[in-house]
């Protein structure tokens, strides 16, 4: 389920979620549907013909022409400032996708699933958690570990909190500023936290780690050092520190 042609897309809605991130709903006629965890490429064309492309994870999955992105602004970026600050409903851009078949969850896999997100790396993991909740026949136990700088930086905070009642529990970690009254975790994700908040190696979980490159490297290394099979740790890095 991958395609290689650029498809015209129209922005249906834009919803601010944090001071530096927005959720974009796109209408993409001809979109073939996508698996949870896949991404697409977005191409912008300036009036002078200059083009810029970037990859963005999809928060949505399944069929239909509607696709959902959540974009976090990279201040000196070429594409994300436009998508976070400028683009509005009715604007047109181009997309290519769905892309990637590695960082995807399949509802017929009964393995326990551990989702681990750093910052806006939560987007494809939201797609996976939504798909798990929608897949009533799935027996896969799923949980999320979400590391963010502060509560105000969390994407999909309300929805993720509501996942709990639908079987996907979340461990929150605040790396800079914890909310008032917080008695949970603060600071960087390390081996002791992973031991508490991740399904143990004895359960042979399938683990999806997504976030900035440094976060993903540190977490993946710690998981393997604690006994997880490297072949069961799927990673997706989006650069940065």
């Amino acid at each position: 389920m991958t395609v290689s042609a650029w498809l015209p897309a129209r922005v249906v809605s834009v919803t601010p979620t944090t001071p530096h991130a927005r959720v974009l709903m796109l209408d993409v006629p001809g979109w073939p549907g996508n698996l949870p965890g896949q991404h697409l490429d977005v191409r912008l064309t300036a009036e002078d013909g200059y083009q810029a492309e970037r990859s963005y994870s999809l928060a949505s999955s399944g069929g239909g022409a509607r696709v959902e992105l959540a974009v976090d602004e990279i201040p000196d970026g070429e594409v994300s400032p436009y998508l976070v600050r400028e683009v509005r409903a009715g604007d047109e851009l181009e997309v290519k996708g769905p892309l990637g078949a590695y960082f995807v969850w399949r509802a017929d896999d009964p393995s326990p699933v551990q989702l681990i997100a750093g910052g806006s790396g939560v987007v494809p993991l939201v797609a996976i958690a939504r798909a798990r909740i929608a897949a009533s026949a799935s027996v896969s136990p799923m949980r999320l570990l979400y590391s963010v700088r502060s509560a105000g930086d969390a994407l999909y905070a309300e929805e993720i909190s509501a996942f709990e009642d639908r079987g996907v529990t979340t461990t929150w970690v605040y790396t800079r500023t914890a909310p008032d009254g917080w008695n949970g975790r603060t600071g960087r994700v390390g081996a002791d936290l992973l031991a508490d908040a991740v399904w143990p190696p004895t359960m042979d979980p399938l683990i999806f780690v997504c976030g900035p490159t440094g976060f993903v490297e540190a977490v993946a290394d710690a998981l393997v050092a604690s006994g997880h099979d490297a072949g069961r740790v799927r990673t997706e890095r989006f650069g940065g520190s």
Partner: protein
Amino acid sequence: MSAQHPAGPVDPVTPLDGNVLAGRLGALFAVEVTTLVVVCGACGASGALAEAVVELDDEAAIVRCRACTHTLFTVLGDDEAPVLRPASLASIAAPAPKP
């Protein structure tokens, strides 16, 4: 005096041509590329292409081995006409079928 066995080659290899590979290699090139298993010829490490280190610039994507940092291959050209130029890449294999 001929070095050949009097009865000729027992199991001669019949030269064919590349057309015969259509079926044999079809499965490799039909696979979504990030799931392909690549082996580094410099250090022997193997893993899904999705796990390789990739450095992007305006000219190319440089694909490096995550274990030893040797360049596995570079991808030149644009999306419409990509060119893969091998470097330390030892092999590319389709992923193991799901059990």
